[in-house]
């Protein structure tokens, strides 16, 4: 089981793109997955409807009668994985989604605003973990990094800054690539359609690292029980 949330209180950090990739990766690996779209613009359902391989992915959205906790309870009883895409702000949904999650991914670009938002989100996850009294696997994922071999010094600076604040940063980073921008227009999703390409390999590396974190967290959870 895995309830995976993409959270960052600052908007425009890449949550939705990563949520799309995560669902595509899980589908490509034969996993059972549903999604909860908490962005009122509803980008997930629109995107999945365009991709034949993702057309069958169930996407739920809340309304006054169907609360987030209710929807996730229902989805996670029927699917092995639930991917939650939050709105880019510290909303009332944020703390609910965090309390439900097994794994939280905090995307962060290189800006100071992203860093501030990333740390605030990290603190909220820590608080959710303390309240829930169970481990919540979590990681900061640097996004829109340079895809080439040369790493800008701000990336290393930011990794160190996050680490100093106690946040774990994934070794893999989500590289800046045109294919992620074209994904919606072309209906061409690297994790599904071009698994031997660099973009798919990039996301697969992120996925593998996240799954290792999740497995370690599950082990801690069993040991604590």
């Amino acid at each position, binding site marked *: 089981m895995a309830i995976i949330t993409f959270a960052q209180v600052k908007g425009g950090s890449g949550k939705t793109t990563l949520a799309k990739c995560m669902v595509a990766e899980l589908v*490509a690996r034969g996993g059972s997955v549903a999604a909860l779209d908490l962005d009122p613009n509803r980008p997930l359902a629109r995107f999945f409807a365009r991709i034949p391989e993702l057309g069958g992915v169930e996407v739920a959205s809340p309304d006054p009668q169907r609360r*987030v906790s209710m929807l996730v309870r229902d989805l996670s009883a029927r699917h092995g*994985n639930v991917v939650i895409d939050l709105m880019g702000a*510290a909303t*009332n949904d*944020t703390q*609910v989604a965090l309390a439900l999650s097994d794994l939280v991914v905090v995307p962060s670009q290189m800006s100071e605003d992203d860093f501030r938002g990333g740390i605030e989100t990290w603190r909220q996850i820590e*608080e959710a973990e303390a309240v829930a009294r169970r481990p919540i696997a979590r990681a900061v994922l640097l996004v829109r990094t340079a895809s080439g071999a040369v790493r800008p010094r701000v990336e290393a600076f930011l990794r160190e800054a996050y680490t100093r604040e106690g946040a774990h940063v994934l070794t893999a980073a989500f590289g800046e690539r045109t294919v992620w921008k074209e994904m919606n227009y072309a209906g061409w999703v690297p994790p599904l359609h071009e698994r031997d390409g660099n973009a798919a390999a990039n996301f697969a590396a992120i996925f593998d690292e996240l*799954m290792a974190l999740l497995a370690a967290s599950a082990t801690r959870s069993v040991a604590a029980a």
Partner: protein
Amino acid sequence: MTAPRRPGLQLPRLEPGLTAPTSPDDPRFGLAASLERPEAVREAVAAGRVRAINAETGLELIAARAPAPKPASRRTAPEVALSTKVPDYVLRQLRRRYAESGITIRNQVLFALRLAGVEVRDEDLHDERRRGRG
């Protein structure tokens, strides 16, 4: 020979334990539901953890803070301003009566005019300034 545009999907081995659904009885759902209660959200707002309310999931919070809709006017005609001068002792009496009875100076004048034979409809004697105070 050209390569196929869409390579066939690969099915790598899934991580064990990641495919089972989550039990609906898991305690996390009770905790999440408690965080959705209006008082929990208000507390989170006060603590600074929540700075925006999603209208789709926090409608009752927004609705509770919205001002009550203004009741439709029951008056039969638009109001116009009337300004005149009266002896100061008359105004003092009108003010004293307002303090004692709560009947506004406007309504005291309208009552008096009606007694003097001027048409003043009941609906127009309703003083809307006093609405919502009590």
